[in-house]
């Protein structure tokens, strides 16, 4: 079991090099906690690993296979949480979750996921009445939807997932992540430190991205 490995990965945003020569190796069942100052390239790295952003150079392997060999298969194994919550204000919590589950070919029974993040009482409430923290919980509940099926994504890419969460919700998130890791899943989590790091510390490695010193990518 090899998990996720990157070789000499580099990324250019606009005309600026955000990181270069990045080597990572994460075994199944482990998480990587990614820290670094603003602009150090955490989000860009997440997007490169998800396949949303092409790498300027280097390559990424999953279980020993280059992901560019089969991008569709790679996308199918990725669960991505970005900065924004991709939820539609006019749809209810259930409808929002169900849409993503169906689009990703996952089991559209979403109640357990709502329970997992303690928002089951909001199941039929349109998102426009949600607070920012509640929206975040619902977005994270997407992770729980596919979790227990074999088809569920194996690679979780969580870009500052704990933003706006109260301590209770952070524990729920930590439990969800730990359950994922115990299923031999891989998670990469960008963070600015805090409770989440402590809660999953036993299963996680740390990496601090340095702000890129070379602005030119020549």
């Amino acid at each position: 079991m090899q998990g996720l490995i990157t070789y000499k990965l580099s990324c250019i945003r606009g005309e600026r090099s955000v990181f270069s020569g990045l080597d990572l190796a994460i075994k199944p069942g482990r998480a990587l906690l990614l820290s670094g100052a603003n602009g150090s390239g955490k989000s860009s790295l997440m997007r490169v690993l998800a396949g949303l952003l092409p790498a300027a150079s280097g390559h990424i392997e999953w279980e020993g296979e280059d992901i560019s060999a089969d991008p569709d298969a790679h996308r199918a194994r990725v669960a991505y949480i970005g900065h924004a919550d991709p939820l539609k204000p006019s749809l209810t919590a259930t409808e929002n979750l169900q849409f993503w589950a169906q689009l990703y070919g996952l089991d559209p029974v979403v109640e357990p996921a709502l329970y997992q993040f303690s928002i089951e009482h909001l199941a039929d409430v349109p998102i426009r009445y949600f607070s920012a923290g509640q929206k975040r919980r619902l977005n994270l509940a997407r992770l729980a939807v596919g979790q227990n099926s074999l088809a569920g994504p194996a690679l979780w890419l969580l870009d500052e997932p704990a933003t706006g969460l109260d301590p209770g919700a952070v524990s729920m998130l930590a439990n969800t992540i730990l359950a994922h890791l115990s299923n031999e899943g891989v998670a990469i989590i960008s963070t600015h430190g805090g409770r989440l790091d402590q809660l999953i510390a036993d299963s996680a490695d740390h990496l601090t991205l340095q702000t890129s010193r070379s602005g030119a990518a020549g």
Partner: protein
Amino acid sequence: MEVIIKYLDMGGHAAFVWPALGITALVVLVMTVTSLRSLRTSERALRAAEKQAPQRRARAQAPGTDA
């Protein structure tokens, strides 16, 4: 003199021929001036940037060249 006036008159169509040629010359001139000016400003910006970062990567290339 006669010849010149007759020539400038363009067979009675001076009001069309000369403006047409004049506007063409004007557009060509504007394109030339803006192109040259952008080259000048870019060279100035490049020199200023090179002075700011002389110690490091003085021969840095434009981005994306190693992709």
